[in-house]
């Protein structure tokens, strides 16, 4: 599988990453090389093999329904780029 500049641009948009035009060909080249490496997987017959999402065969643990987190807005918003009136600010969201 090889990716061209248009595909790289499409993926970059999905991932919300600005890539300079002059860098696109290099990314296309590198990504294609990585996909070529990855394509070695096709050599393996995996018919009927159960996919493994986690290393350990464990079940999800459940926590009790109790409120344990106090308000830490001041601390959390101290590291925020832009806040006002307790709200995080972003360029206008258009619906």
């Amino acid at each position: 599988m090889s990716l061209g500049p248009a595909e790289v641009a499409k993926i970059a948009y999905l991932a919300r990453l600005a890539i300079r035009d002059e860098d696109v060909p290099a990314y296309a080249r590198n990504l294609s090389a990585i996909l070529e490496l990855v394509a070695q997987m096709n050599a393996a017959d995996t018919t009927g093999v159960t996919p493994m999402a986690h290393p350990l065969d464990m079940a999800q643990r459940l926590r009790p329904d109790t409120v344990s987190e106090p308000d830490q807005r001041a601390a959390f918003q101290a590291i925020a780029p832009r806040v006002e009136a307790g709200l995080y600010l972003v360029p206008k969201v258009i619906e």
Partner: protein
Amino acid sequence: MEWETVIGLEIHAQLATKSKIFSGASTAYGAEPNTQACAIDLGLPGVLPVLNRDVVRMAAMFGLAIDAEVAHRSVFARKNYFYPDLPKSYQISQYELPVVAKGRLSIDLDDGSSKVIGITRAHLEEDAGKSLHEDFHGQSGIDLNRAGTPLLEIVSEPDLRSAKEAVAYMKKLHQMVVYLGICDGNMQEGSFRCDANVSVRPKGESKLGTRAEIKNLNSFRFVERAIEFEIERQIDLIESGGKVVQETRLYDPDKGETRSMRSKEEANDYRYFPDPDLLPLILDEAFIHAARADLPELPETKKRRFMEAYGLSAYDASVLTTSRALADYYEATVAALGAEPKLCANWVMGDFSAFLNKDNQDIANSPVNAGQLAGLLRRIQDRTISGKIAKEVFEAMWAGEGEADAIIEKRGLRQITDTSAIEKVIDEVIAANPEQLAQYRAGKDKLFGFFVGQVMKLSKGKANPQQVNDLLVEKLKG
């Protein structure tokens, strides 16, 4: 051409937990912005989710209540998309393996028949925050208090054929989740909201038409109006040679119409994959058994029991079981009175419900409790007061004047049942109305009512109406 409408609903019920689905932050409504968004809800670097036990218990209860399969193994997945109210830029949801699948719910139609609506699946997910569009120097403000609130998304089969059916289904589901105690059902606060998938097709056609999805309908009325508008729009479009496009639409309640949300139409590719921070949710028999034990009596069962145990009509039984609170109140009233379930039903459905509505009051906050209402009904039962006087007493009780007996005493409302006392009043009335007496005796039977009225008036309504009737018949004969 005749058209058939096909509707499927996706309903988001906010689960009534104290803390969020994956964090220990509070879910209480209405707090100051971002004061209930903890490190996990904010998606700080390095944080991890741990699943709330009650969320799972509630989902299992719902599954059992709709005769669904509660999955022994279900999986949380990430739905990836960027939006400012979605802090991690992915929503933790369930995709391929939901916790509940293949359920059904029976709805009552206007013609008295019932219809079974299939429920494809119900899955757990986290809610997003809110974007506030007031102008902050041309910016939007993000409040993440709601982020991470547990939701159960309930997806119906496309079994609904009209806006009315859709509303009936939604109401039934609303009743169910509130009955189960898993959702507060508060639609204004967004605890129960609906997306509707609507399409039309020529009658007899088996292939589905192209559907539009109407987002975020948060009242029964809006659901009905939005769907009706949408059906008409689609039919008009097709009949005038156009084509329905698959899209997301928004209902504008002010204009009563749906409009396209083009901003959401950009190619979404959610890239679902199993969330590696969460392990498969395994529910063993013991867990499901415990959830079953937590199930309250469900509306249909309760309705049948009310009909059998209390001799109520189907209509009365169904009204009284509309909500668990009302049914409980009714049963408490019957238990306190120890008799006359029909009388209790009339009062709970009648004056009691009317006063609740008038004051827009919850049963829990009602000024008259079941024991107090039974105290009033006991006085009707033992003929201390008439039904009519009882209404006056009830109003006084509602206003906080005290127990029924105290009000009856204080206001001297005790019914007159002493025959001689009633006879004395009748005699006075007859003596005062010789003309009417003559006419009555000449065959003008209608005047009987006039005499009853006069007697009641003179006795200030306290004379026992049955006795007044019986005695008047005798006296008027002369």
